[in-house]
């Protein structure tokens, strides 16, 4: 009678253990920590760095707790916030600019739990405080820049005695070339087809005003736009790194948008100014006045010059006058020179190309410095010697560099400049105090509702009601455990969804208990009533949860931000509540009543029974009671 086979109990026990194990980390308090990560992809973060960090702190007499290495960086727990601040300053000074030292909070969950991924729930920005930006990349701007670049290219290309060109001009995203005769136009067309197959050429005009309109193919446009987003993301990552945020997120959202999330950032003005910054690359001339460098080294920097350290080498004295800024750079790619030396190929826009040509003509044999300006800190990436006049906006920087360095420099030059302008189209900032308030409000809502609901259901359905309340607890635990295990982002609407899910999930228990009462009312024996109650109610419970799931899925598909947080919890909650309200509750009922062969009565609250005649005259008999009747008739 109403007994579960052992494997079913096993499933329940495993589920409850899983729930408990993955819920527990949420109760461990958070402890302050410092996090050391690397700015450069080439600087590795590993056990050696951890040892180094620990040694630095040991030498400085700063107490610290456990440390470990994860993909983000080296993390070290701290005894209190004062020590945390102190440790950060000590570390930043000792490690230098290659590393970022950020403040963080870590859960004090035991290490073995972290190993099996039992971590506290991942809180959204509205709960932990921080800034969320949605940036729109101006794709028109990216195409404008590309057209600029091509008009320079084409102008150089048409400088050919065989081609009688009457000028090249940019019109929107297209480049228009004018010719005196058809032969020139055909020659130009062939030449461009060979050198720039990514351009689409359409002849136009007649008489002595023959034109050739060059536009980018759809594929090339897409490539440029994709590159613009990728490059802007690289730039943003570099900039965000300067903020020393523990867990920054820079992600592409849709075709032309980038999401930046900075948890825990309080100084939003600074965050905005750093993210929105432009022009971070400068080209200046090196001050080669004899003796000036030596003087500068002794602390007497000549007026009009600055002393910088070259990236991998000695000091350089650079003139203050800026020749070019980074926004004149369209692209930078690593490559090789004709003599197979590693080099960086930079392409400048029209204006940049003209300036560059003039400057190089006048300064052959002198050195030119390429500087990366970051947060008012300048670094000379490289300072090559100008060999000859460079026209056409294509610059090749070579020198004593390895392939990897060429890669790095190209990346820095690209990342220093934005490929296309960006605009903040959405901003959501939550202060840390509001985050904590939101957590409290959400937690109290769930707790208050949970207690009220459990009390009511226990009072109304007695023992079976208590079983329902226990299932509600299991449901809550499983839901929290799933959210923790999946590390899904929990938002305030998400907490509201937890409350709502509990409120809705009780429906399954109500359906079952009402069915059991109805069976009893018709005189079915307790065991039949329980079996019929669960069997009959299951169909209804299944159907109604599917409709709830449809609503949840649609929110998941179309929702964004906090609403998506609601949807995730809603969908997971439907799954856990179906499991706990039906499967677990029947298991518990079986434990309580299943072993009793002669079960006289089950406690499901008072079952009010009208006279048999009234029932039969007015109502349809439920399944269990009807079967019983049929059985009796047969025997």
């Amino acid at each position, binding site marked *: 009678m109403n007994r579960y086979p052992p494997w079913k109990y096993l499933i329940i026990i495993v589920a409850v253990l899983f729930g408990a194990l993955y819920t527990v980390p949420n109760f461990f308090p958070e402890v302050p920590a410092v996090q050391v990560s690397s700015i450069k992809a080439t600087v590795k973060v590993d056990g050696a760095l951890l040892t180094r960090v620990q040694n630095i702190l040991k030498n400085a007499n700063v107490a610290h707790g456990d440390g470990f290495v994860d993909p983000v960086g080296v993390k070290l727990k701290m005894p209190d916030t004062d020590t945390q601040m102190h440790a950060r300053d000590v570390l930043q000074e000792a490690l230098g600019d290659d590393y970022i030292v950020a403040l963080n909070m870590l859960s004090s969950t035991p290490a073995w739990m972290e190993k099996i991924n039992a971590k506290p729930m991942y809180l959204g920005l509205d709960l932990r405080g921080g800034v969320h930006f*949605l940036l*729109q990349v101006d794709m028109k701007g990216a195409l404008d820049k590309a057209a600029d670049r091509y008009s320079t290219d084409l102008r150089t290309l048409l400088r050919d005695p065989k081609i009688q060109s009457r000028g090249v001009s940019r019109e929107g995203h297209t480049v228009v070339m004018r010719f005196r005769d058809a032969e020139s136009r055909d020659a130009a067309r062939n030449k461009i087809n060979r050198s720039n197959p990514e351009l689409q050429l359409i002849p136009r005009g007649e008489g002595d005003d023959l034109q050739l309109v060059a536009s980018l193919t759809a594929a090339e446009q897409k490539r440029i736009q994709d590159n613009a987003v990728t490059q802007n993301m690289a730039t943003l990552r570099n900039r965000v790194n300067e903020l020393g945020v523990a867990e920054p997120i820079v992600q592409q959202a849709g075709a032309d948008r980038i999401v930046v999330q900075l948890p825990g950032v309080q100084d*939003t*003005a600074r965050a905005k100014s750093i993210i929105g910054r432009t022009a971070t690359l400068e080209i200046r001339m090196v001050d080669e006045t004899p003796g000036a460098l030596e003087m500068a080294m002794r602390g007497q920097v000549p007026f009009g010059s600055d002393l910088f350290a070259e990236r991998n080498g000695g000091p350089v004295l650079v003139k203050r006058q800026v020749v070019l800024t980074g926004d004149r750079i369209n692209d930078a790619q690593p490559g090789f020179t004709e003599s197979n030396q590693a080099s960086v190929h930079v392409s400048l826009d029209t204006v940049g190309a003209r300036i560059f040509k003039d400057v190089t003509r006048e300064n052959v044999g002198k050195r030119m410095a390429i500087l990366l300006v970051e947060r008012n800190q300048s670094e000379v990436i490289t300072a090559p010697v100008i060999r000859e006049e460079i026209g056409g906006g294509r610059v090749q920087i070579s020198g004593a560099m390895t392939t990897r360095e060429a890669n790095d420099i190209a990346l820095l030059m690209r990342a220093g400049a934005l490929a296309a302008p960006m605009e*903040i189209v*959405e*901003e*959501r900032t*939550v*202060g840390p*105090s*509001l985050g904590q308030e*939101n957590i409290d*409000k*959400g937690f109290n*809502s769930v*707790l208050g*509702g949970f207690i009220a*609901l459990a009390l*009511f259901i226990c*009072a109304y359905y007695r023992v079976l009601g208590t079983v329902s309340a226990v299932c509600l607890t299991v449901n809550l635990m499983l839901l929290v455990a799933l959210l923790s295990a999946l590390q899904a982002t929990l938002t*305030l*609407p998400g907490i*509201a*969804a937890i409350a*709502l899910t*509990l*409120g*809705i999930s*009780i*429906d399954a228990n*109500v*359906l079952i208990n*009402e069915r059991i009462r109805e069976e009893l009312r018709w005189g079915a024996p307790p065991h039949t009533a329980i*079996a019929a109650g669960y*069997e*009959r109610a299951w*169909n209804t419970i299944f159907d*109604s949860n599917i*409709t709830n*799931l*449809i*609503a*949840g*899925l*649609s*929110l998941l598909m*179309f*929702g964004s931000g906090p*609403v998506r947080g609601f949807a995730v919890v809603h969908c997971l909650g439907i799954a856990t509540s179906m499991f706990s309200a039906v499967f677990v509750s029947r298991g518990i009922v079986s434990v309580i009543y299943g072993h009793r062969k002669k079960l006289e009565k089950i406690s499901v*609250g*008072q*079952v009010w029974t*009208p006279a048999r005649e*009234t029932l039969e*005259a*007015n*109502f*349809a*008999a439920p399944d269990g009671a009807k079967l019983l009747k049929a059985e009796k008739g047969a025997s």
Partner: protein
Amino acid sequence: MEFFRFTRDIPFMRHALTFNIISLATFLLAVFFLAYKGLNFGVDFRGGTVMEISYGQGQAADLSRVRAAIDTLQLGEYTVQSFGTADTALIRMPLKEGASSAQLSERVMEALRADNSNVVQKRVDFVGPQVGKELYQNGALALLFVVVGVIIYLSARFEWRFAIAAIIANLHDIVIILGFFAFFQWEFSLPVLAAVLAVLGYSVNESVVIADRIRENFRKMRHASVPHVIDSAITATISRTVITHLSTQLMVVSMLVFGGEALHYFAMALTIGILFGMYSAALVMATIAMWLGVSRENLVKPERKKDGLEAEKIMP
């Protein structure tokens, strides 16, 4: 304890027309307010900037001084109101053509700090025009997706008449929720939209329970008339309907009490949805299904085989 003690089926269907007229009247009233007053869309959908500022415990936000401080910036149109507790104020600024909105909140904070250095920025929401429009479109798409999804599912699981009746009944709930939001000019934000869609899923729940019972009754009460079958189904499920809704409402009340301003309108939307859901599933869905001509033939026949199997399973 048993709240509901019926000795006979309540003849709901005899008054079907009356219920429909009441529903239609409420519905039209809601539509009227929606058309006449419109929804008070929040910053999520309309775009613009909202700032929540606080002066710390025990220090009331002096709205007139806040206004005076912002006036020095000459930003044009804006509103300031108190929000939740006395020390907190909410500043709303609409989108402005051409103005860089990202810097707007910084300038306002500077002006406020100059006036009173205790001021703390608790929250800033800025939504650009394009994003607002997209959120609006996505909301409409989500609603459409739920409606179509529910119709397909109920048509497959029950019958098209139930599907149509259920969706009309539940859209009627949704429109009434929106009508309330329009009448009181409560702010319609993203979480409220989530609540509305959750209500849609939840109320369909109700319709499913009753439709399920109607189908079951058609099998058992072989000689009863259609209205009698429906009456019996509603009467038998009334207890469950009320207890379930009461339980869910307990949770929602807890949100209203503890959830503060952030969850207030979310919980209000749920409350209205739950109250009207109780009524509409029984009295709107069932009556419409009846008018559409739901009958024993189109429900029971294809189910017969399955029914036999189920009955076997129940045997203890």
